[in-house]
């Protein structure tokens, strides 16, 4: 027990100062690497000089034209415009707050015909995890949803739930992320593991993700997520013009 309390003290001392680290988006490569490709994105940029992106989620704040938002769709649009000079990049965010995948899936045909996206960034899993719906059924619904998007002419990038340390013990997103990984592999599409990326930032002290009130972390985190997803799209679509950082 003495050993234990000594260790605990040491750890407490060591843990203190690391909090105030610089805000950098950097994460280890293995957290964001992908083997899947985005062929339709590559073709659309190279041939038509156009990139129409739809961000689909159940997040209340991710709704509307990206340039009217101060969240990651906006930063994603900016990043891609900066990197793809001469390409008309447009991002639209469609949110269906508090709806599970079964309800969202019904809207896919309408969204496809209205928005004509070449790339759909589909953030999902949070509502389902909070409600505890059957992970197996979730996987099946996601799989057919992705198939519908692909048949409708869009590439897909899946994004899982974010890391929310305050509510982490109340629901377990693990089974849903596992199903997303399964769909991403069988459908050969990238999965952006937002949960692990943010957890890395929290654990290394890059961002303090535990604040109860608005402390400006929102914009910083979304800036970084927008940038990392832009990186991923550039790589997976084999596009040159990546800005070196």
């Amino acid at each position, binding site marked *: 027990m003495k050993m234990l309390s000594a260790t*605990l003290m040491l*750890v407490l001392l060591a843990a203190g100062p690391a909090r105030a680290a610089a805000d950098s988006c950097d994460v280890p490569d293995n957290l964001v690497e992908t083997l899947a490709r985005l062929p339709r994105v590559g073709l659309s940029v190279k041939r038509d000089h156009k990139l129409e992106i739809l961000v689909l989620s159940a997040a209340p704040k991710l709704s509307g034209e990206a340039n009217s938002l101060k969240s990651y769709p906006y930063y994603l649009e900016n990043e891609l415009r900066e990197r793809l000079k001469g390409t008309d990049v447009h991002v639209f965010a469609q949110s269906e707050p508090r709806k599970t995948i079964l309800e969202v899936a019904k809207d896919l045909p309408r969204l496809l015909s209205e928005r004509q996206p070449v790339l759909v960034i589909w953030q999902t899993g949070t509502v389902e995890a909070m409600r*505890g719906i059957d992970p197996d059924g979730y996987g099946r619904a996601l799989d057919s949803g992705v198939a519908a998007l692909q048949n409708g002419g869009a590439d897909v990038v899946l994004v899982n739930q974010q890391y929310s*340390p305050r*509510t982490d013990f*109340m*629901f377990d997103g693990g089974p849903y992320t596992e199903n997303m990984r399964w769909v991403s592999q*069988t459908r050969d599409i990238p999965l952006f593991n937002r949960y692990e990326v943010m957890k890395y930032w929290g654990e290394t002290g890059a961002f303090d993700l535990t604040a109860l009130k608005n402390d400006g972390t929102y914009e910083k985190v979304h800036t970084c997520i927008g940038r990392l997803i832009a990186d991923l799209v550039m790589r997976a679509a084999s596009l040159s013009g990546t800005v070196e950082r």
Partner: protein
Amino acid sequence: MLPAPPAGRDLRLDFFRGLSLWFIFLDHVPSNIVAWFTIRNYGFSDASEVFVFISGYTAAFVYGRVMNERGFIIGAARILKRAWQIYVAFVFLLVFYFAEIAYVSSHFANPLYTEEFGIFDFFQKPDVVLVEALMLRFLPANVDVLPLYIALMTFFPPVLWLMLRQPDFTLLLSIGFYFVAKAFDWNLALYPYDHSWFFNPFAWQLLFVIGAWCGLGGARRVSPILNSPPVIALCALYLVFAAPLQLSWLFPSLSGRLPSWLLILPLDKTGLSGWRLFHFLALAALVIHYVPFDAKFLRSNWARPLILCGEHSLEIFCLGVFLSFSAHFILTEVSSLIAMQIAVSLAGIGLMVTVAALMTWYKNIERRGGKPPPSATQEGFGGVTAS
């Protein structure tokens, strides 16, 4: 240092149940790096299977003897008393859970987590939620193996009655029930959305009954088959097949390179998929084969903390869930750095062992009824003689 285990008891049960309790605690601390040590990362099954199987084994062993010696009524009453204790433990944990949620929900206003605010929706109707929770129709995450245990114990008296008479037939019934439930998608519904129990009791009863069947002599009867070289080799092969698959799953860069016919993951935990069940059975067969009843290390000092925890499984399970709430609290309020995760994990396990040791010590004192100890050389708590 720690109280010695009683003689004549199969210490393997306590040892591995203790280990599963440690693992359940570590897995329940959200995003804990120490959870890398637990078996869920190296195979299809995890600590839940170990816990349910051993619980079935010991329940049949203990209450089977009571039912044989004192009749069905007394045996059933003992089992239901145990189910009631587990229910009380569940309600106890629920209070802590609600307290933590209430705290977070009333202070939480960070726009980064607008979507996660939805988790507090159920708090809009506390009257309904509390009643539903008491009726086991509202189950918070991390506590859900307890309701499974309650359900299994509540229906155990008739199962045990039949099993004492027709063990193999009972096992067959259980297997049949497992498949029927699967075919008809049976599970218990939960408030407030159309979802159901995470541990489907209609599926998980099979593992509990397999445990009970083994506890009543089944294990002895099949041991010639289980110990035959081809079966042992088959079990080992299956574990060797599962480990890299499960590990690759955690490293997307590896799993992306696997051939598509190997994409059998993720496995259904709610319905206890066959892949998981056989993984656990293979693991159990190997453990029984390589760890004999009287293995020396089971009586060694380093095994004792685990055995102590295993002896008080219900209490230590509840303590573990409570500690995982506390660990989470420390990780969010103080620091979530990796060193801190290691520290709270070690501290939690230390507390689990300490409490288990205290309980054994207290039980020994109670048993002696306040009389002086029969022998001064008997080992007691804290390295001093028990008195």
